[in-house]
């Protein structure tokens, strides 16, 4: 109970602090509502337009999730191949760095030219941002497996495949989640960049620009809050999966249910 209070209560407190400071600044400096709304006005701008906002929010969530999943999958596959084949690692690494040096906003327009004003360029941009930390973390994880442990597996006469599956891959799981968490926080940013370039007619980024054009400052802030909520939620979901998938980091004994009991080995 105490733990729950600490793990949930303190983050809620910091959230309240944030809104409190926001409110205080507006009141103290007599900020005009056209420049910045009070927190409550921003929240009302969400709730009173929920019918319009909900489908748009759903769209952003879909782009974020699709992009994240494809980026994570690509990142894992690429990371494993690079981690296991030295030649490919040398070959791909410069391209990997290059890919992230390209400003993702500058990537959006060419992608829209190729794929049209659809969800595809958006998903690709999200995946583009997500795969990088995932790949780097897996390559790192695979290269730091204890050499003596690999020798032990060799002494036992273990096959390469089993050594990979039972030693190397599990050893890379913790680093993998570091990469996934970084990817999760950036995913929604990618989705919004994509939405700005690929105006599919109705999406959250366009709604925000509309609100801005109509001097609906509360709407602008409300949309920002929604985008942030998507980012935080996705991050928390990934953290939840991490806690479930890596029980050995937090627990002293194995759960009765979990990865290990699902898969008999």
């Amino acid at each position: 109970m105490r733990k729950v209070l600490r793990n949930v209560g303190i983050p809620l407190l910091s959230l309240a602090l944030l809104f409190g400071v926001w409110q205080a600044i507006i009141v103290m400096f007599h900020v005009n509502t056209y420049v910045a709304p009070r927190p409550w006005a921003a929240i009302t701008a969400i709730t009173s337009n929920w019918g319009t906002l909900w489908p748009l929010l759903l769209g952003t969530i879909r782009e974020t999730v699709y992009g994240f999943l494809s980026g994570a999958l690509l990142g894992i596959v690429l990371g494993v191949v690079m981690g296991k084949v030295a030649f490919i690692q040398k070959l791909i690494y410069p391209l990997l760095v290059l890919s992230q040096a390209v400003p993702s906003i500058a990537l959006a327009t060419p992608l829209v030219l190729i794929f049209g004003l659809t969800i595809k360029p958006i998903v690709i941009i999200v995946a583009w941002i997500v795969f990088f930390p995932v790949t780097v973390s897996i390559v790192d994880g695979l290269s730091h497996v204890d050499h003596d442990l690999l020798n032990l597996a060799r002494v036992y006469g273990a096959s390469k495949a089993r050594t990979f599956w039972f030693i190397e891959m599990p050893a890379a799981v913790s680093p993998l989640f570091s990469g996934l968490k970084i990817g999760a926080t950036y995913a929604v940013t990618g989705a919004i960049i994509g939405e700005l370039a690929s105006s599919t007619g109705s999406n959250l980024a366009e709604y925000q620009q509309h609100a801005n054009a109509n001097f609906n400052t509360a709407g602008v802030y409300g949309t920002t809050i929604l985008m942030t909520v998507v980012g935080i939620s996705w991050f928390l979901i990934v953290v939840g999966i991490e806690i479930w998938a890596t029980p050995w980091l937090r627990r002293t004994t194995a759960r009765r249910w979990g990865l290990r009991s699902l898969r008999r080995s």
Partner: protein
Amino acid sequence: MPQETLLRLDAVEKRFGDTVALSPTSLSIAEGSFVSVVGPSGCGKSTLFNVIAGLLRPDGGEVTLRETAVTGTTGHVGYMLQKDLLVPWRTVRDNITMAARLTRRVTPEDTAEAIRVAERYGLGEFLNHYPKALSGGMRQRVAFMRTLVTPHQLLLLDEPFGALDAQTRLEMQQWLLEVWRESGRTVLFITHDVDESIFLSDRILVMSPRPGRVVADFENPLPRPRTIDALTTPEFVGLKAQIMRLLHGGDHA
């Protein structure tokens, strides 16, 4: 108790560049015996082990296990190091069955055997624990159980208790003797610690560096079973003095 030869080395040698890590060495280890290898750092003890385990291919000579040549191949010995090398993501039980998991599918018999061994040697309550919840001594016990449940007759232990404090080490030595006696395995044991080698072994090989080679081969006269009292008998002290003289090159002569 003279028994037939389990392991035989014929003129095995290993070089790293210009350094002779192990000059041509021949020896044979009797089935069921406990043999220690003592020597200072860099005397080729670990090289000797890695050649026997098959991690290193010797530059010359042959390793034979029960009349079968195993030179440069792996999969024929149990192997344990000073580092416990338990995987943190597996429970004690699943760490004990690791060797099976790495070579084939783990059977219910494997798991039953892991549970039996853990319960027999005092870790039954910890089967479902992750290694990080255990003390250093307990982790080394698990590591040894992992070695013990392999089907291999020959167990190579490379300074398995080197990182433990003196008190725990003594407990572990007594424990190892008990398990060894019950298991009927053959143990080849590397150590820095002369007391440890005498307390545990039937036979002690003394190695010396540059080039790495076996310089002496002692039969241990101490009767078994041994208790801590054996550590202070005249036979023990006499043997220790002989080994120390070899290790420290006449300074004590």
